[in-house]
């Protein structure tokens, strides 16, 4: 199967977009995990104090 230059460009563009989306999702997930971890630590610290 022969591909035209335009088709190759399109395939590369689509692949690149997919990779970029995956990277973005991973970054968002990492940020979310970081935020959850910070919130969890704040919660543990607050619970560690007595109710006074």
């Amino acid at each position, binding site marked *: 199967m022969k591909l035209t230059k335009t088709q190759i460009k399109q395939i590369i563009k689509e692949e690149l977009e997919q990779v970029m989306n995956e990277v973005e999702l991973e970054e968002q997930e990492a940020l979310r995990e970081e935020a959850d971890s910070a*919130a969890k630590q704040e919660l543990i610290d607050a619970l560690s104090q007595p*109710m*006074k």
Partner: protein
Amino acid sequence: MSAAKTAIIVARILNQVYRFEPNVGPNQVKYVQKQMATKTLAKLLKTDEEEKAFINTILTMTLLTSGAVDFVRNPEIWSPEKSINKDGTKRRWSHILSNGSDVALSALGFPTYELITKEQYQLANKLLPMIGSTVISSSEVMEAFTKADVGSINKDFKAAMTGDKDHLGAEKVLYRGLHSMPASVIKFLANPGVSWDMSRGVSTSYDYGSAEGFMNKGGNGIIFHMKNETGRGFTADALSKYKPEREVILSGKIVVEDFMLTVYAGEEFDQDKGFDDELVKIECTKEFILMRKGNKMIYGKRNVDFSTDIKPMLDTLLSGQTFELENKGKVYKIKMLDKSATLKVTATIS
């Protein structure tokens, strides 16, 4: 039975002594309780090991409930200069012990006039996870009480213990309030299934009012309703210097089952990004969502899917961003009012 378990059972019975109101004049109550406490300890603590375990249990409970909690959590930061009272005097055990604990420790020969040491904070740090996760049943407490014939020291006390026999074990529901919490913590908790390790020991109460009062001290309040099916915890209660708080020390893994969040939001006008004076009240659990503006319901849905219908909304609102909602052709743009959240969390402890 281990000395540690005996110590906790004895503490439960001693707690009952200080909850008991003897039929004497007000001036004699402390004297009668002291007599009862001394006799109770003599009947129940049979070995040096049991006495030592009991003393360490009371010291640990006291350091968490009325000592310097930061030293309990991290004894390495302790120093003689920091171990002081508000008036600058050096902190001694007698300054932080409840009357009942002071009487009990003195009866066992513990020098309550001495300064609190770093080693004692280290010991408390080590013992708290164990004390807070101990499971003691009502029947175990009653068995020890009957076997040692503690009831013979006061007939009314015996009757009170028997009448209260179903409540001598740990309470099945415990409460904990928090206030002035960041929205990120509310967001983290409004999430069924999340869990965290609280094995270091946490102060809770079997009295809803105490936890609620603490929650109401500031905005963004949280109240935990913790199901304690396994009966864990150390009942500090009347042995704590803060007796009215009905305190229970608890440790274990906490898992969120459900929540009820109430939050207020302003509706944004497109034209000038101003906000309507009348606030939008949002109430939601993992299964329903309800929004009202004044008496008018602007949105309501039951049996919703948490991950698609509720979580994205909460993530947006609790991050301080504007959330857009369309209902019956009208678009609402709402933004959470700072510190306006109240979260009731139902959780299990195991």
